[in-house]
């Protein structure tokens, strides 16, 4: 097994074998991240490919003073957001899908209640405006001010989108549980 440093040096030289090692080691983790920002698995793979092209072309800019994964992760997220902005023009806007305001308050969840796949697919069904804000805030820990700048929206929009996203997500998960108990009966 090659060390990360060897792989990096190889990638800087443009060696295909080193690029393959890097891809092989990190593509699964990175694809799961892309998938959270994408509408479909196909789109996630598009983002992954575009992101890796950027990674390989700019690998010499990675100075090694932080973790490689954090650097690649940010490239993927940047790519996903760029992709989203590009696609925005061609895509049907479903962000207006409103959520009923009154059905429930914040709820506690058990770790075992849902599988990874179930959660992933619920997140993928999320309206895109919600999904990006939710991903950036809850998963990546960006602040609303930063999200506003990244997504080119208002800071207050980011906050309200986020609380709607939470509500949307919780409502979907409750519905999922209800369907499951109905099926079991």
């Amino acid at each position, binding site marked *: 097994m090659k060390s990360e440093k060897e792989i990096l040096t190889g990638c800087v*030289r*443009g060696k*295909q074998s080193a*690029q393959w090692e890097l*891809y092989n080691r990190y*593509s*699964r*983790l990175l*694809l*799961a991240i892309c*998938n*959270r920002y994408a509408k479909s*698995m196909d789109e*996630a*793979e598009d983002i*992954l*490919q*575009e992101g890796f*092209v*950027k990674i*390989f*072309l*700019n690998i010499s*800019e990675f*100075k090694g*003073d*932080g*973790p490689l994964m*954090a*650097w690649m992760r*940010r490239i993927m997220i*940047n*790519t996903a*957001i*760029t992709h989203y*902005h*590009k696609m925005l023009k061609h895509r049907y806007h479903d962000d207006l899908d409103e959520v009923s305001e009154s059905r429930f308050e*914040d*709820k*506690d*969840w*058990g*770790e*075992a*209640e*849902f599988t*990874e796949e179930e*959660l*992933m697919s619920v*997140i993928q069904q999320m309206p895109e405006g919600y999904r990006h804000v939710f991903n950036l805030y*809850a*998963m990546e820990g*960006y602040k609303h001010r*930063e999200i506003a*700048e*990244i997504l080119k929206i208002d800071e207050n929009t980011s906050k309200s989108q986020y609380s709607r996203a*939470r509500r949307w*997500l*919780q409502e979907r*998960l409750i519905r999922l549980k209800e369907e499951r108990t109905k099926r079991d009966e």
Partner: protein
Amino acid sequence: MSDKLNIEQLVKTKLGEAELSPSPGSWSAIQRKLRWPQFLRFHPARFNVYYAGVLLLVATGLVVVLAGGKNKVEPAGPGDHTNIIVPIEQDNSDTKGESVDQTGGNLNDENVQPDTAVSREQGEVESASGNQNGTSGINGQEEKSLEALKNTEPVEVISPDLSTEEVIERSPVTNFTSSVSTGCAPLTVQFTNKSVNATAYHWDFGNGESSREENPVHEFREPGRYVVTLTAENQGGVPTVSRMMVEVLETPVADFQIEEGLTGVDNHVVLNLVNYSSEASAFAWNIVDEDCVNCNNWSSIEHQPTLELKTITPDSRSVRLEVINENGCSDTVLQPLPLEVQTSDTRIKFATAFSPNPSGPGDGSFTLGSKRIDLFHPIYIEVPVQIHMRVYTRRGELIFETHELFRGWDGYVLHEPAKSGVYVWMVEGKWTDGTSFSYHGDVTLLRNQYF
């Protein structure tokens, strides 16, 4: 399993470390997309457009030399540049007309009229750069401006359909790169402005600081994520904006002190390295010697190691601590080993501790330039003409006295080992220039299994 997760915690625990396997075609798709951009980028170890350009030049040169034997070569006037470009545009209707700067420049410099075979080859290079659209650049802004850059430059030559975007043509195209995008605090970042068509710049570093320089260097002192915004302006156009994220990771602080202590086992003196570092998750201790770093064998990764005196050699100068945190950020600090004092006079110094030879008393002699660990003696930088050294117990009993220049105390009193502890010394003497000196201090006798 916890039943008390809120929605964020639920998603994060379930999906934070999730993995998904890419489809088998993904890798080859990446390689396909990489091929042209890699070719267009200069890299000494790879065949790329610059090497291709050189080959092309050599080929052109050869053709000219061969043709020159029969026909006289006319020096090319300015009109010849269009002669090169125009047929290409006609032959390759799908190209956008942008040329790769260096290749095109080199060809023009040659001042020759290439034959048709050569110009067709150049056309291929150009259509290649057309394929590059949207695949290079670290962020979206860079991509957009790259495209815009390609669209604006050749406007005068061709592309009548682009003339409708007059405002875009006049507006600056904002673009920049940074020397690093992630790093440990304090992070110094060199920003390189790649904007086109602009006359004034404004940088907002996202931490309340800003600059109007063209290529600023900025230090981010605090950890955090910062959105750096570059606004470029010119006369007549709309100001445009480009953004980039810089992440500054938390850096630990290395700090420790050396304290003398006793071991519980046989009560001998050791040095305790007391760790005061913050935000660190791993530690690496070393002894640094006078001439080489890390040449001493001792090292430790404990949080607070104990340093046995037997690991200290006469060359040991200081203890080094390097700390690192989960981000991979590190900090280093050195503390001198408290083993000798410099007097106010730089011509003589004294050790603060010594460890007598346990096998018995010696004659106490030493040589110039040496620093004995088993003797207490003056360390001469310059040799005086006269010396008078006395050592007392703390109660004031004189236990050693000498007038010899190169004799020190071996830690024995009447052939009996003196006890571990602090002794007081007084040294008086005269330098070669006739001035006299007088110093006093204390020295710790450390009795342990040093040798």
